[in-house]
């Protein structure tokens, strides 16, 4: 029996596999850095706190820190599922004036970074802000405020997932239940809800993961949770404490990530071949009121307050004749840095995307896992891990003085960004890779084709749209990113827009923060608007 010739593998396969392995190794670097420090924490040079991790673990407040993180996650998951699920049902199954506007506006908050939502709502809802004074609120901060803000930030994603499941499910079973005499609620319970459960579970888990990983909102609102404490420890150079927080964070986030991968397979739910679109109905008072409440929360806190607040800060600054720090530098820095990062991220995602699109079996699974894994790790954790890896590497090589230039060169920064967003670049690239028919290579061989020509004339054009989309996604994501920028970016002299917003907000220079924020929000909204306009892949 003749053995199958190995040159049947299309060109680029070996390179793609090597690239996938490379990305996998890169993903491990922060973890290795963390492990190096966990196993052998260096003493604090100024005689600060003793570094034994077990001692720190038993310290007072550690338990409530972990509990606070979990409470935040669970609160956001619950809130996002309720708000997002309700708005999804309203968008797909209900009929009321302004429905089309609602279904678009409630999704737009996805564009806004959580620190912008948090900073604007915090000022508006605290005493001294328009709504805070109206409602007699004292201060909008802490874990409860973070739950509200992150619910608003994640509910749009849950809404999109549930909307997809609702349209797949079709309306027939709910109608069947009604013909059998079921009340509207019972008809929903048996007709539609069973099909929605996987989507709700997946959306809830993603919201949970996102909330426990978030940095921007919890930092602005000073919520006592792991990501914020980790960042504080890093800025105080308390690396031992930071390592402990990092390990705890991993312990919380790890199982959640595994959960999302497990549930993701079912998330679309069972569907019929050509689901008939369900007939829309007018909601009653209770349902209509609940939808209105959810919409006010989502659009009010997620869109109106952020934009209006920043606008009012800028106008107030103009009115008071304050000097605005020029925006040229942050805009230029942001654009250049995001462009570089976008190219690197797309290149990084190429190998795994090719593997997932073209290959079967273990390589296919491995490519997907490698690509999605870093997205589960909170940004501040990736940044910290890379920081530690840089320290460990330079000290291990005996040249501690190389650390500062390493940090200053921006290599770690770009690596951190790429790891953060490789999963998002992976999606569009894989979609393109899937469209390259493997049999084309066989046909090319029959026609006497060469690898180089095949790659340049068949593969490259097919991958180009996906690569473009991947780079664009990564560009916008890096533009808005905060924790990696703060931890790994300040030493490079880079002052992108998020840094400007963060710096000015903490100095109470609202007018500067507002101006930079408006530019960022405009770009982000533009990007989301254009993806909403296109038919979904």
């Amino acid at each position, binding site marked *: 029996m003749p053995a199958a010739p190995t040159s049947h593998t299309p060109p680029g396969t070996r390179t793609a596999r090597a690239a996938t392995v490379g990305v996998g190794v890169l993903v491990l670097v922060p973890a290795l850095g963390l492990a190096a420090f966990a196993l052998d924490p260096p003493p604090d040079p*100024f005689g600060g706190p003793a570094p034994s991790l077990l001692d720190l673990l038993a310290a007072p407040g550690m338990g409530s820190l972990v509990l606070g993180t979990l409470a935040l996650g669970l609160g956001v998951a619950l809130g996002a599922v309720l708000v997002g699920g309700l708005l999804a049902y309203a968008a797909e199954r209900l009929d009321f004036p302004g429905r089309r506007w609602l279904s678009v506006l409630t999704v737009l908050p996805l564009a806004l970074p959580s620190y912008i939502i948090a900073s604007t709502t915090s000022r508006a809802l*605290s*005493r*001294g802000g328009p709504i805070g004074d109206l409602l007699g609120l004292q*201060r909008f901060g802490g874990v409860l405020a973070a739950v509200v803000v992150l619910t608003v930030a994640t509910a749009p994603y849950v809404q999109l997932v549930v909307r997809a499941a609702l349209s797949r499910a079709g309306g027939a079973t709910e109608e069947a239940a009604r013909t059998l005499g079921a009340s509207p609620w019972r008809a929903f319970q048996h007709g539609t809800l069973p099909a929605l459960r996987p989507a709700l579970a997946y959306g809830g888990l993603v919201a949970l993961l996102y909330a426990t990983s978030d940095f921007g909102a919890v930092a602005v609102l000073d919520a006592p949770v792991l990501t914020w404490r980790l960042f504080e420890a890093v800025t105080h150079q308390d690396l031992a404490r930071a390592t402990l927080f990092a390990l705890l964070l991993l312990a919380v986030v790890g199982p959640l990530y595994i959960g999302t991968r497990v549930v993701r397979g079912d998330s679309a739910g069972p569907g019929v071949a050509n689901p008939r679109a369900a007939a829309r109905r007018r909601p009653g008072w209770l349902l209509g009121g609940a939808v209105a409440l959810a919409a006010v929360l989502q659009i009010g806190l997620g869109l109106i307050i952020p934009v209006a607040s920043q606008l009012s800060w800028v106008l107030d600054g103009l009115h008071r004749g304050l000097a605005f720090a020029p925006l040229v530098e942050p805009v230029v820095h942001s654009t250049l840095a995001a462009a570089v990062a976008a190219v690197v991220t797309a290149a990084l995602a190429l190998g795994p995307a090719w593997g997932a699109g073209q290959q079967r079996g273990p390589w296919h699974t491995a490519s997907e896992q490698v690509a999605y894994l870093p997205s589960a790790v909170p940004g501040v954790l990736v940044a910290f891990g890379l920081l530690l890896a840089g320290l460990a590497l330079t000290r291990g090589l005996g040249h*501690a003085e190389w650390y500062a230039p390493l940090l*200053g060169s921006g290599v770690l920064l770009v690596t951190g960004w790429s790891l953060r967003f490789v999963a998002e670049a992976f999606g569009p690239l894989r979609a393109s890779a899937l469209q390259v028919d493997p049999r084309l290579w066989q046909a090319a061989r029959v026609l006497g084709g060469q690898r180089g020509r095949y790659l340049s004339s068949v593969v490259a054009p097919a991958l180009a749209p996906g690569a473009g989309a991947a780079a664009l996604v990564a560009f916008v994501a890096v533009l808005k990113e905060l924790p990696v920028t703060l931890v790994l970016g*300040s030493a*490079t002299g880079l002052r992108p827009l998020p840094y400007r917003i963060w710096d000015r907000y903490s100095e*109470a220079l609202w007018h500067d923060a507002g101006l930079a924020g408006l530019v960022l929000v405009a770009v982000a909204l533009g990007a989301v608007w254009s993806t909403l306009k296109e038919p979904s892949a």
Partner: protein
Amino acid sequence: MRTLLLSLTALLVGCGDTATPTGEPATPKVEEAPTVTIYSGRGESLIGPLLDRVEAETGVKVAVQYGGTSELATRLLAEGQASPADVFLAQDPGHLGALAERGVLAPLPESLLAQVSPAYRDDGGRWIGTSGRLRVLVVHSERVPEAERPHSLEELADPRWKGRLGWAPGNGSFQAHVSALRSVWGEERTRAWLQGVSANAPTVYPKNSPQVEAAGSGAIDVGWVNHYYLYKFDHQALGVVNHSFEPGDAGNLMMLSGAGIRAGSAQAEAAETVVAFLVSETAQQYFAEQTREYPTRPGVSTHPDVPAIAPEALVVVPQDALADVGATRTMLQELGLQ
């Protein structure tokens, strides 16, 4: 990115240094313009404009890396002899003292040190104060009428202040003040006071500026800040004022921001020029007028808005006490404030 290129240049220069067999720093060639690398723990928005003028005023090029004071101090220690830094600017005196104790800072020439009052420089001559910042309370003038304002810092632990306070425990000035309290009051009294204030549920802010604005808007009534933040705002419109304690009280701490030169720096001469500039009349007037701080150079007066303060009103704290940053951080962490 100037910093990137300059860092690489510094690295190359540094490598060249360690290859010299005599171990002494190589004399820069006459044709090269010296570039002094500054690690600045002072924020860019505060000191950036001044550092931009160094080249014009002195002919010395500077490359500045901004960061947190403790972060940069730790990095200086870790980098040791091969560090590219020449000058270290600290926001608070604690880390300057700590670095001086560990031999990281070189003794400054007497002619330089003499330009400021003896109280405003290191006893061992290894760092020099560039400006002073006074710890004060920022209060809303109507909600906290004069009769109610505390005479002593210790009164903040009183339950009547519950829900009305703000502070920034992550801030370097806060930590320096706690180091001072540990020296003046002792460990137990300091710890008890911190717990008492914590029980009043003060609002935690990341920095000092938001406290001024918060006192104006009513989110808090009293904030614990450095004096000059008041002037970043239209404080009359906000209705807030600075309040100092009775003379000699532990709350009246004058904290110095200062500069030191790294021992073993290849640009020692140029670095001295930079530090000299910072205590020159030009720079001192900048600190007085632009950032509203207390100048350390005698003969330079404060901004008219800033009230002068008699030296007797200030609390006296030994410099090495302020350098004990490690133990302060331990205490703060144990109390859950960090």
